[in-house]
């Protein structure tokens, strides 16, 4: 398999360059952002919800891709964190569906998987990719950066 040469520093810098003035902490910048987690593993669900709650986010769960779409329409989450290996509609297909739906495409998609599928996740329209296992610092930081990025992207239009 080809060596994956991500240049994370660049992508992360790009994010912070856009938003030099923003504080990424959810408590004051994002309030209680809503996160929809699409995950089957009970242990990951438990730990994910615990760490995200601790970080100040509101977490809801879906057990499969179709359930996630239904909930996304009702819940309007800020971020969907999805495993690739979920039933009915896999995580990558979920990304494509969300990103091609005008009502949902503003939702940030974070693929969080046991599979190393960075490039496929990118092709499917994911905004970020994280590999399991769960490391709370990486997860929470990534979520915060994504929220900051999202605000920065939507801000000019709203403010003007």
């Amino acid at each position, binding site marked *: *398999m080809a*060596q*994956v040469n*991500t*240049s*994370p*520093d660049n*992508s*992360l810098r790009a*994010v912070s360059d856009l938003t030099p003035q923003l504080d990424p902490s959810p408590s004051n910048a994002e309030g209680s952002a809503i996160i929809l987690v699409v995950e089957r*593993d*009970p*242990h*990951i669900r*438990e*730990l994910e919800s*615990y*760490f995200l709650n601790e970080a100040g986010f509101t977490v809801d769960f879906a057990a499969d891709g179709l359930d996630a779409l239904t909930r996304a329409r009702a819940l309007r989450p800020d971020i969907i964190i999805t495993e690739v290996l979920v039933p009915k509609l896999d995580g990558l297909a979920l990304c494509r569906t969300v990103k091609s739906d005008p009502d949902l495409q503003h939702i940030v998609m974070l693929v969080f998987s046991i599979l*190393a599928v*960075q490039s496929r*996740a*990118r092709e499917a329209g*994911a*905004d*970020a*990719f*994280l*590999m*399991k*296992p*769960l*490391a*709370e*610092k*990486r997860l929470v930081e*990534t979520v915060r*950066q*994504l929220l900051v*990025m999202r605000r920065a992207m939507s801000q000019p239009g709203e403010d003007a």
Partner: protein
Amino acid sequence: MIEDHLAGAAAYNDAGFSRITTGNPQADEILGGGFPCNSINILMGQPGTGKTIFAEQLLFHNAKGDRPLLYVTTLSEPMTKVVSYVQRFDFFDSGRLGKEIQYEDLGAALSEQGPAALTDWLRDAIKTRSPKVVVIDSFRAIHDLAVSTDDTRRFISNIAGLLSAYDVTAFLLGEYTQDDIRTFPEFAVADAIVELARQSRSSRDERFMRVLKLRGSAYREGQHAFRITAGGLELYPRLVAPREPEKYVSSVDRISSGVRGLDDILGGGLLTGSTTLVVGMTGAGKTTLALQFALEGVKRGEQTLYVNFQENPAQLRRAIANLGGDPAAVQRQGLRLLYASPVELQIDSIVVEIFEAIKSGTIKRLVIDAVGDLAAAASDSQRLHDYLYSLIQHFAARGVTTMLTLESGEGFTGSSLAHDQRFSYMSDNLIYLAWSTEKVGHRTIRVVKMRGSAHERDIREFEIGAKGARVL
């Protein structure tokens, strides 16, 4: 897109996984770089085999950063005992305790609540302390608390689920036996299984480490000897022959044996990089011949290693002086004496020491006097032969001309024939020393075999006089 460069890079690096060091370079070498990160590993072995020390050595070497390493004792050994014992080791650092390394005793909780106490503890530890490493000692003992097979399955499934979900590397220690591997469910979820064992030999014990499983990675198979020192486990990875069969450069270069008259019957001298086995009864002149071979090397400015199990350094220096050499001078000029008492002899450590010495590439001549002493110390003669074979291949590859001596009780015949023959097969040249049957008190020499060279086959007289040995 924000990408997970940390995990991504780790997932694609050459080794396949990122690794956690054992804190022991040899163990890391055996494991192909260490234990895989985010894995469940079993360290198994009977009490007293060194599991706890191995785990603690790993902990203290990895005790840095803001995430703690947790060591939890269950039912077999109280935590206080484990902690008080670890203080004796060099790697112990009391400054790490309570911060980077946290010991905890779950014995009481487990006795009251059963196996679920460990699951609860682990879940809570993950949530509140973000552990980088968790050691559970003994994990096997928890099985005794399970009330049913279902209970056990649920417990293992929960523990394995939590450990797999979270970014943590776990070590489950236990007094497991080989039979347990088939029946205990933790072995199915384990990414690595390492066994530590102790085998009794008449006056001492030999310890071995063996990797039974290492998911997704190559490792060094077989038993690797170790001993427990103040520094922790001192390991001697099993020597294996060079991966590629050495192109046997049939060297035409010859070097002098250093024994007058011997080069003539050897067709002009020993071929560079060849191995010569010198077989003979006590007093037949093996050590004299081997020492002269070594001193000849020094005279010609060649680095020479003399490994000896019989004569202590003082005796050997005397023997050098008897051959007209100045012991201090020849040592300065490049003769290295490596002495190991047969009593303390642990073959693996000697083999590793020889191998380390020749790896430098400067040694041109080597003597092992006598390989029979190695054989006597070996608990497993097949293993010894594999070792010597590997060593000889390495010598040949590096152009080290080697002489091995072998004491033969009844001459090169009789009961020890099979044993001796195995040595002779791996040698290029075979020289046989004996007492003359015709002239009392006279010695004889005969070149029985010389690979890749013509040689004389006659029995010749071998004289040891004031100036050393010579062939008449």
